[in-house]
């Protein structure tokens, strides 16, 4: 009997948690399916309306922005290019750097180690203005390279890969060496296949991280052609239901990625611990 009571309490507490996490999004979603006129007179809504297709298609294809030069669809495309670029670049460079650090004798190894890992102390937010100046000197303002490169300059992924490599038994390299494997083919044929889960987890993490960037695109893009979804939210003008629809659409890509790949993601992160 007490078992039933305690299990009921568990479910009750979890349901309250669910309400807190899900209801706000539901209200915005339900409200996004009503006309602006209705929202303006009746406030936020709990129940669905009949303007779903109207509102969402209008937002996706309508020219918006301060100068009306960009559609939401283009912003999504920009966000995807940016996030994929950041994830790909940081996975490749970190995978290689961690390999160089763990599997080789490097001159000034401690110095290089610190050169890489001290960067964890200096997130982009702390060097935003000088970074902007550097990017404008390099003529990278309003380019994808400008959006991608400074955010890929992160040692987080290197740290994860380094930990992972260190957990691989030394015997693997000994055996490979006996077979006469050189460093390049050991990397390609042994380490990369072994790191698949880790690579996927880091890629997902960096993709969501890149997609969710707000401040950097805000500063780097003076031309509306390069606006991304998350920064476009604040600057996008439109009626209230258009804005609700855009908020809902903006969260779909990262949320889908996390829901479908949560196992992989959590597994990858916890392989380290």
């Amino acid at each position, binding site marked *: 009997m007490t078992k039933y009571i*305690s*299990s009921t309490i*568990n*479910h009750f*507490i*979890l349901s309250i*948690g*669910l309400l807190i*996490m*899900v209801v*706000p999004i539901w209200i*915005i979603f339900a409200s996004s399916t009503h006309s602006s006129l209705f*929202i*303006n007179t009746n*406030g*936020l809504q709990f129940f669905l309306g009949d303007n779903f297709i109207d509102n969402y298609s209008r937002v996706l294809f309508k020219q918006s922005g301060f100068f009306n030069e960009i559609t939401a669809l283009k912003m999504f495309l920009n966000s995807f290019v940016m996030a994929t670029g950041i994830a790909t670049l940081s996975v*490749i*460079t970190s995978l290689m*750097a961690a390999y*160089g*650090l*763990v599997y*080789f*004798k490097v001159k000034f190894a401690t110095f*290089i180690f610190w*050169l890489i890992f001290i960067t964890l*102390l*200096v997130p982009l*937010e702390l*060097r*935003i*203005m*000088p970074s*902007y100046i*550097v990017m404008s000197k390099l003529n990278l303002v309003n380019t994808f390279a400008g959006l991608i490169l*400074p955010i890929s*300059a992160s040692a987080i992924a290197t740290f994860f890969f380094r930990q992972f490599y260190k957990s691989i038994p030394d015997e693997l*390299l000994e055996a490979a*060496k006996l077979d006469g494997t050189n*460093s*390049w083919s*050991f990397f390609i044929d042994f380490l990369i296949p072994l790191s698949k889960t880790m690579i996927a987890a880091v890629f997902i993490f960096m993709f*969501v991280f890149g*997609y*969710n960037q*707000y*401040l950097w695109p805000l500063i780097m893009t003076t031309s509306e052609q390069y606006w991304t979804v*998350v920064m476009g*939210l*604040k600057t996008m003008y439109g009626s209230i239901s258009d804005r609700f629809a855009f908020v809902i659409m*903006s*969260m779909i890509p*990262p*949320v889908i*990625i*996390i*829901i479908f790949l949560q196992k992989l993601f*959590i597994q990858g992160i*916890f392989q380290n*611990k």
Partner: protein
Amino acid sequence: MKKVQFKSNYSQYFFLAPQLLILLIFLYWPIIQTFKDAFTMQDAFGFGSQFAGFDNFLFIFSDPSYFTAFKFTIIYSFVITFITGSIGLLLAVQANKVMHGKSAYKTLLIWPYAIAPAVVGVMANYFFSERYGLLHHLFNNLWGFNWYENVFDAYIYVIIAGSWKQISANFIFFLAGLQAIQKTVIEASIIDCKSNIRRFWTITFPLLMPTTFFLIIINITYAFFDTFGIIDTTTIGAPGSETKTLVYKAYIDGFKGLDLGSAGAQSIMMMIIVLVITIFQFRYIEGKIHYN
């Protein structure tokens, strides 16, 4: 480092080069620039600049609004850490216990983690708007809520907006931590201690210590840096600059106020704070906790 390694004179540098190159150009160059700015005074029209020693630092220390931002950042990170940590732990413990619907709960509680802080801020904006806002109406009926004028009300606004998605992160890591505790330990403890609550605080919670400390660091970093998007889409620092975080203030002073010297000095102060937190984490916490 591995005991067995490749012997080579140049391949290691080939592997290290891409990352080092990106870091040097896009990280070290701006950092050096930040230090240069922090020790330089620019005249009001931006025509000339001269070495200023510690003047910029003295300036921010004598600036009351810097202390307001400092105070707010400390309160904000403390409250967010406490709220999201305790709710995340409570939910994780329940989710770890239930037999039915575990994965449904897990999925639904995890996904706000993926939403960008700026998007959360825009949403919070609607809930706290005078016109549509449900929470605005609720709090207004309770005690006359007015966040543009009342500091306490503005705190509530940014704390709710800032905590919401971070509950998910705490939930994920606590749940993973709970699942990593071996069944035999729990079974043995059931024999020794009948009370569920006492058993949790004496057996389970100490075993969760590594996760707890990891999350404290994660939550503090989140409150320091990631909440930029939340502040910029909700209060914009109002009333006055009562809800400006240190990062937000450095951005406003540097980018909007074009005071590079002050922004640089503020960035360096932040770097020192992060450095202290990191040293604390490695020295104190890593030494004191026993991983199983």
